[in-house]
């Protein structure tokens, strides 16, 4: 009896072990690696799954997928590949060049089937379609930037100069840029390119292109800039610059020419099926998807004030005639804005700086409360700003009311600031480190909130949607005008609330907690509580600013926090410098908001006179440094001691 039970147990264990191993043997486990959640990559993945499903490979029945997404963080890709090997995947499917490149580097003993790769030779997958690495094959997606440019120039002749943004960190940027530039040269068209290092800088970079006379943007493929496509489209539309995308799948541009990522993914799926049926990847040549697809978005064309020739519409493989969310373009029946004249384009340029400045006022006030009222060097804003954007974007994306989303973002920021405060007051972590810890942790929190690295809000309702419903869009009444009015009302309301709050008995005690800790304690106030609440308020305002910016630029991105604090500091310093000597609390609050607007205007000016957007953050940091350092040279700069002392 005892013996037999032991045998039975042993047999069961064996069976179990055998089962799982046999399971792996029979049922393929495919590691699916994606670099980020960009719309085209998602489309390719859908096509891939569809191809497998069409051939009878049903998820979790006879095939297992392990899906991993690096959410825009390229170094994570290597970790993902290592994880795949550890989990014993049988095949790897990669989407995008960078994911494929990483897979090639780290995996040589099992098949890697790629998709969404424009040029597999560039990343070392092989030397020709048939002569390639034995474990690597897939479907390449032709992204003929040169012919896209040709069509773009022919379709929109009013644009004399063309241009593009490129991400200098993108290993493929040079390849596409080169292709576009050579084509432009052959066609006798001036082509300008401007480097852009973060999605946050896209509006500024578009302004810089515009300042160089660019009338049309033919955007080359790029992961980072693709993520910021809503911002690119929005800014370009305000400046009267037309946008043509060289890959399909992004909402916003009136014209997109490029291969269908869905079809490409489907072709990749077919290659995967051959491998699953036992064919060696070495024997399967690289597949090429069919000819490029033309996608025409008539609604977008109307917003841009451009017309797309009938022949092209007839040729298009996809015509989007109405926007999904019509509330945004309710007034579209009225005359669309026409391509801007020079005077009105300059006005629009400054208007967008003003609107950004208004949206950044809340940030400036938040930084003011932490750094000046509380005298706490708080770094949390670099995390709480994108937190506000992430919370608002996620809620709006899932259909929440934009106003409620904005308010929730404010409270989320308050939570973040409160945690920073508690770390300092209760756990005795230094001020700087408290902020650094929370800011770092927020990066993960923000990714969790969004579920991916980037959320597009194009065609979603925002705070200005109701405004657009009430007042139809016209040439004079542009999107920026609506945002300007809404942000102005909001900013005035918030500023008045802050000025009132800081004058109340509670707010006075909060100011005293920063001004004189010994005194406020002697007056019976627990300073720790005040520090926590002031930091909560400060970061709530910063998050609110993030929520406004996300709605204005049309997307939230997990990287958009870089440099937030320094930008806020710059606004505060500008405000203080411009402030009349006798200004009291209310005056200071107004001047800080004006500082934010002046700061955006200075940036706009710098771009207009040719500052490379790459140098924006450097210039901002240098500006802040200069204003802090100048008083130390004793040029008779007033308020010198106060300024340096307060920013210790």
């Amino acid at each position, binding site marked *: 009896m005892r013996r037999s039970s032991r045998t039975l147990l042993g047999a069961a264990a064996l069976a179990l072990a055998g089962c799982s191993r046999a399971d792996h043997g029979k049922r393929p486990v495919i590691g699916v690696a994606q670099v980020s959640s960009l719309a085209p990559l998602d489309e390719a993945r859908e096509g891939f799954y569809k191809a497998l499903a069409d051939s009878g490979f049903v998820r979790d029945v006879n095939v297992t997928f392990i899906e991993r997404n690096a959410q825009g963080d390229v170094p994570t890709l290597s970790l993902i590949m290592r994880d795949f090997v550890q989990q014993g995947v049988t095949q790897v499917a990669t989407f995008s060049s960078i994911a494929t490149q990483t897979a090639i580097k780290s995996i040589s003993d099992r098949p890697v089937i790629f998709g969404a790769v424009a040029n597999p030779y560039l990343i070392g997958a092989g030397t020709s379609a048939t002569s390639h690495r034995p474990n690597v094959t897939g479907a390449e997606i032709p992204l003929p930037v040169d012919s896209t440019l040709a069509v773009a120039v022919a379709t929109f002749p009013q644009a004399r100069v063309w241009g593009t943004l490129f991400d200098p960190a993108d290993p493929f940027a040079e390849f596409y840029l080169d292709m576009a530039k050579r084509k432009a040269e052959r066609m006798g068209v001036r082509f300008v390119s401007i480097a852009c290092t973060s999605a946050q800088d896209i509006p500024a970079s578009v302004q810089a292109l515009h300042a160089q006379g660019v009338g049309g943007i033919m955007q080359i493929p790029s992961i980072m800039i693709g993520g910021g496509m809503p911002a690119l489209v929005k800014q370009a539309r305000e400046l009267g610059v037309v946008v043509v995308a060289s890959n399909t799948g992004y909402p916003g541009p009136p014209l997109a020419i490029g291969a269908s990522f869905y079809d490409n993914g489907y072709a990749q799926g077919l290659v995967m099926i051959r491998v699953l049926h036992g064919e060696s990847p070495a024997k399967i040549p690289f597949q090429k998807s069919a000819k490029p697809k033309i996608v025409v978005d008539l609604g977008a064309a109307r917003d841009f004030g451009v017309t797309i020739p009938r022949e092209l519409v007839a040729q298009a493989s996809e015509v989007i005639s109405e926007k999904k969310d019509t509330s945004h373009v309710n007034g579209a029946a009225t005359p669309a804005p026409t391509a801007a004249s020079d005077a009105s384009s300059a006005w629009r340029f400054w208007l967008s700086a003003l609107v950004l400045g208004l949206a950044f006022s809340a940030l400036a006030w938040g930084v003011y409360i932490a750094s000046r009222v509380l005298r706490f060097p708080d770094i949390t804003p670099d995390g709480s700003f994108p937190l506000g954007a992430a919370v608002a974007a996620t809620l709006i994306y899932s259909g929440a009311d934009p106003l409620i989303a904005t308010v929730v973002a404010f409270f989320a920021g308050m939570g973040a600031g409160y945690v920073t405060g508690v770390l300092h007051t209760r756990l005795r972590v230094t001020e700087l480190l408290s902020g650094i810890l929370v800011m770092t942790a927020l990066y993960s929190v923000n990714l969790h909130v969004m579920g991916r690295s980037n959320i597009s809000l194009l065609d979603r309702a925002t705070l200005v949607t109701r405004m657009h419903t009430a007042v139809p869009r016209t040439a004079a009444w542009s999107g920026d005008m609506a945002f300007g009015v809404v942000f102005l009302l909001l900013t005035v309301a918030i500023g008045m609330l802050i000025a*009132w*709050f800081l*004058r*109340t*008995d*509670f*707010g*006075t*005690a909060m*100011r*005293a907690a920063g*001004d*004189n800790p*010994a*005194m*406020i*304690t*002697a*007056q*019976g*106030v*627990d*300073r720790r509580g005040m520090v926590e609440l002031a930091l909560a308020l400060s970061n709530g305002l910063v998050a609110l600013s993030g929520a406004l910016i996300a709605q204005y630029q049309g997307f939230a991105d997990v990287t958009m926090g870089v440099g937030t604090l320094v930008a806020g500091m710059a606004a505060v310093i500008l405000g203080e410098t411009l402030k009349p000597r006798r200004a009291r609390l209310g005056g200071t609050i107004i001047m800080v908001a004006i500082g934010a607007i002046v700061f955006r205007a200075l940036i706009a000016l710098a771009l207009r006179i040719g500052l490379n957007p790459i140098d924006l953050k450097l210039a901002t940091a240098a500006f802040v440094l200069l204003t802090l350092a100048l008083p130390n040279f004793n040029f008779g700069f007033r308020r010198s001691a106060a300024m340096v002392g307060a920013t210790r």
Partner: protein
Amino acid sequence: MIEISGLEKTFDQPGGDQTIALRGVDLSIAAGQFVSVIGSNGSGKSTILNVIAGTYRPDAGSIQIAATDVTRWPEHKRAKLVGRVFQDPFKGTCPSMTVAENLRMAELRGRRRGLRLGLNRGSRVRYREALASLGMRLEGRLDASMGTLSGGQRQAITLLMATLTRPELLLLDEHTAALDPRAEEQIMRVTDQVVRSQSLTTLMVTHSMEQAVRFGDRTIMMHRGLIVADLSGEERRGVTESDLLMRFSELRYTAEMRVTKDLLAGAAAG
């Protein structure tokens, strides 16, 4: 009524040394009594003030203010019962705020601070009257920024703030030490007037023998963490500065002996 018993406090010095600041101090102050505390540097006179205020936690002993044991109360909670004036004229007020705002904050000492604008016509009238009572022509400076006032003016306002709502105990920590002689004279006059008119229980630490004998109705002398003399009533009447100085050097000697004996006893026991 203040009841202090067995108060001990030792500070750790950087480098591992220890400084004994209070060696079991007992002190009882009757309600309405004005006590001056003198002693040399390191005698523990400032420490005892800070321990009573809650800035430092005692290692042993207990503190009762108005029949409430506050030994474990945090500093800000004790502020409900205790009004303070610091040595540093910058410490007692907020320089970036107006005189009125500072007074409003003081008026709410120990009370809930809500979301209302506390500065209104009524409170401004109150503050103007209170400032006028100082006799320093400060009543017109209600909207002046605190930072624009002189050290003496600040100390006068800090004193007013400490007594605006009547405290159970007023602590004065060498509050004239940083002032010039004229301002010192003025502040002492105002102090005496405020303490007498409200009959406040007061503990004033001072470095000035002259102040110690001229003001208050009881003088305590501290040395090496101990109370070495306690003069009041008949004994104190007619005592001059030089008497006090003499007394002081004598007592210093006996205290020195006592501490040394303690140390020797400790060494012998160890």
